[in-house]
């Protein structure tokens, strides 16, 4: 079989050599080619060119915008230009809140390189343990935040490590130089730079500004080569000016903090109002918090008690009753009211004084804070009259502050009042108000009978605020008469001699009330406060102080809250440059020395 195959192969080779001929004489050439083949070829090539041409027309003319856009997507980049958040400044232009750059560090764990040592250094820089860093990196292979908003130097150090896969993004962080003293007024922002509390929330829109954008062409290395199209410049947020004076604010905060500690109290608040312009000079609460570090915050720290907590105002309501009795001509300051034996019964309920006083003039009723005297005056009013008075000075209504969380308190409609309720309301039980509302109401006495509008803000660069006109509630004469009574309350024989201030005449009303617990009143829990104004003849400021649950033995408003009032008034008037209206024994020693004789 094998031999036969070899034989056949040799025969074929012999044949080929015999039958070889030139190319030109090839019989294949002589064979006629069918004409359709060349035509087909021409047609195919033509079709190919037509397709290319059609595609070119499509790309260049018909769908050009789409392709232009696709091209631009590949080389163009949009850069976000973040707008900086506006500042919050006090009345003297001192910064209360400002944004500083604080880069956030993030990583793509898949791309992450770097040896154990540099990772350990990274962990230390970011303030975490190596184990915590590793577990954070395992969360997501594509993107993890390592630390939001670090300080600039830390970011620079991280950059210097040069680990691949670690990136940073520019973000801003709020700084609050005033710290906890102004925390409740200024509020704070969250990590996305949006206001969450206080002025930061109330003026979020103005403070935020508008981010801008910019289209650019970047080269292979990521450098910006050229601008394309219009760029939108970022609009920086507006600065917000507050009426707060940071010195007064700090001082008020410091005093209420010390008073809360000294009296083992739960909390306290101070409100300082300018009695001429209605500006809020200070609004402080304790306990407070550091707005920059909000870990482990409790609701008790966050509450802006002066504005959001309502309570029964107690004796601080009595001056309004006396004022209306004077205004309506029912009494004069010297009218005598019989308050003996220190208690009275009204539809089965008994109203008592802390101790019996006997015959008291209207002035003395306020000076000595007699419940019976106040009730006797109030029962001559109709419920409607009294309701109108209380709501005219702002009780049961939200103060127009434009501040988040402001409450209205509670003043029930007069149609549902029973006589005993009207009686208790005359000395401040059965209705509720915030400390701010009480301070606001007292501007009626301080501003010659007008309730003035209050404001927390003060447009930047505005000239010194001028005294404002308010809504007239009492006549100037009545207001002056009540101021006299309030002044007497701070003199010996009144309820709050501790409110006195060196150099300035003051007037005010102390209050002490049982705290309500559930449906009844707690026996050993009190709230003490003091509301007053100074200098008494032409008041410049109204100061209200509240101390919640003093439990170190003393609990009368005149003992607990009045000293705070005294210190705050002293400092505030000094800072405002108000000249003392009382004679002070000067301690300045300037001896009369004979002049040295000049030699000549």
């Amino acid at each position, binding site marked *: 079989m094998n031999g036969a195959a070899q034989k056949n192969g040799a025969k074929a080779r012999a044949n080929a050599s015999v039958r070889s001929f030139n190319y030109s004489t090839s019989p294949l050439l002589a064979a006629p080619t069918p004409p359709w083949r060349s035509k087909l070829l021409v047609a195919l090539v033509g079709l190919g060119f037509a397709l290319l041409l059609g595609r070119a027309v499509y790309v260049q003319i018909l769908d050009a915008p789409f392709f232009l856009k696709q091209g631009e997507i590949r080389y163009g980049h949009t850069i976000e230009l973040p707008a*900086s958040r506006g500042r919050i400044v006090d009345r*003297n232009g*001192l*910064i209360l809140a*400002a*944004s*500083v*750059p604080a880069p956030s560090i993030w990583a793509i764990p898949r791309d992450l390189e770097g040896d154990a040592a540099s990772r350990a250094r990274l962990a230390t820089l970011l303030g975490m343990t190596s184990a915590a860093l590793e577990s954070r990196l395992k969360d997501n292979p594509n993107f993890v935040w390592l630390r939001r908003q670090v300080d*600039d130097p830390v970011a620079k150090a991280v950059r210097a490590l040069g680990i691949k896969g670690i990136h940073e993004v520019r973000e801003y962080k709020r*700084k609050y*130089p*005033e*710290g906890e*003293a102004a925390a409740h007024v200024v509020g704070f922002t969250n990590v996305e730079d949006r206001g969450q509390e206080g002025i930061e929330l109330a003026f979020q829109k103005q403070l935020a500004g508008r981010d801008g954008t910019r289209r650019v062409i970047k080269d292979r290395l990521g*450098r*910006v*080569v*050229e*601008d394309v199209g219009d760029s939108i410049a970022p609009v920086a947020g507006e600065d917000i000016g507050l009426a707060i004076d*940071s*010195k007064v604010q*700090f*001082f008020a905060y*410091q005093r209420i903090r010390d008073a809360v500690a000294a009296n083992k109290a739960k909390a306290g608040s101070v409100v300082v109002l300018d009695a001429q312009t209605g500006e809020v000079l200070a609004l402080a609460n304790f306990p407070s918090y550091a707005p920059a570090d909000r870990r482990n915050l409790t609701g008790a720290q966050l509450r802006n008690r002066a504005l959001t907590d309502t309570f029964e105002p107690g004796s601080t309501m009595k001056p309004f009753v006396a004022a209306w009795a004077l205004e309506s001509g029912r009494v004069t300051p010297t009218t005598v009211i019989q308050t003996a034996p220190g208690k009275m019964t009204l539809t089965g309920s008994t109203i008592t004084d802390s101790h019996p006083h006997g015959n008291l003039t209207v002035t003395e009723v306020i000076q000595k804070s007699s419940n019976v005297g106040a009730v006797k005056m109030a029962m001559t009013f109709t419920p409607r009259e009294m309701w109108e008075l209380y709501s005219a000075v702002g009780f049961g209504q939200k103060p127009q502050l434009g501040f988040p969380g402001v409450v209205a308190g509670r003043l029930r409609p007069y149609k549902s009042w029973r006589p005993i309720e009207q009686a208790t309301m005359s000395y401040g039980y059965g209705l509720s108000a915030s400390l701010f509302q009480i301070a606001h109401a007292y501007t009626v006495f301080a501003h010659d009978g007008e309730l003035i509008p209050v404001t927390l803000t003060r447009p930047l660069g505005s000239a*010194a605020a001028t005294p404002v006109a308010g809504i007239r509630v009492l006549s100037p004469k009545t207001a002056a008469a009540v101021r006299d009574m309030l002044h007497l309350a701070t003199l010996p024989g009144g309820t709050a001699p501790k409110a006195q201030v*060196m*150099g*300035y005449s003051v007037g005010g009303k102390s209050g002490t009330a049982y705290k309500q617990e559930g449906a009844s009143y707690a026996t050993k829990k009190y709230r003490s406060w003091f509301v007053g104004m100074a200098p008494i003849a032409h008041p410049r400021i109204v100061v209200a102080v509240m101390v919640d649950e003093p439990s170190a033995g003393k609990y009368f408003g005149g003992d607990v809250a009045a000293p705070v009032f005294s210190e705050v008034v*002293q*400092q505030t008037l*000094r800072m405002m440059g108000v*000249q*003392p209206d009382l004679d*002070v*024994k*000067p*301690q*300045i020693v300037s001896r009369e020395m004979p002049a040295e004789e000049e030699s000549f």
Partner: protein
Amino acid sequence: MTRLNLLLLLVLIASSLYLVRVSYEARRLFAELDRAQSEERALDHDSERLKTELRSQATPLRVERTARERLAMRAATPAVTQYVELPKQAASSAATGTTP
């Protein structure tokens, strides 16, 4: 004719080279401008940060504590204050004048 064409060719080449140079220059200047602008932003941020820092070093709390502890000062009371009456004219100009 050939001469004119040659001349035009030369002009064309010169102009093209100049175009290349100009666009290179434009890119370089743009990059420089861009760098300057980002430096301006960085400096702005720095100044804002330093202003805030300065302010937090001068809070009433710190001033008060330093005055009391390091300089042994105490708050003025009316008893140790000498009040000076400004003459009428000076008083009115002080009232309208701007406070620093």
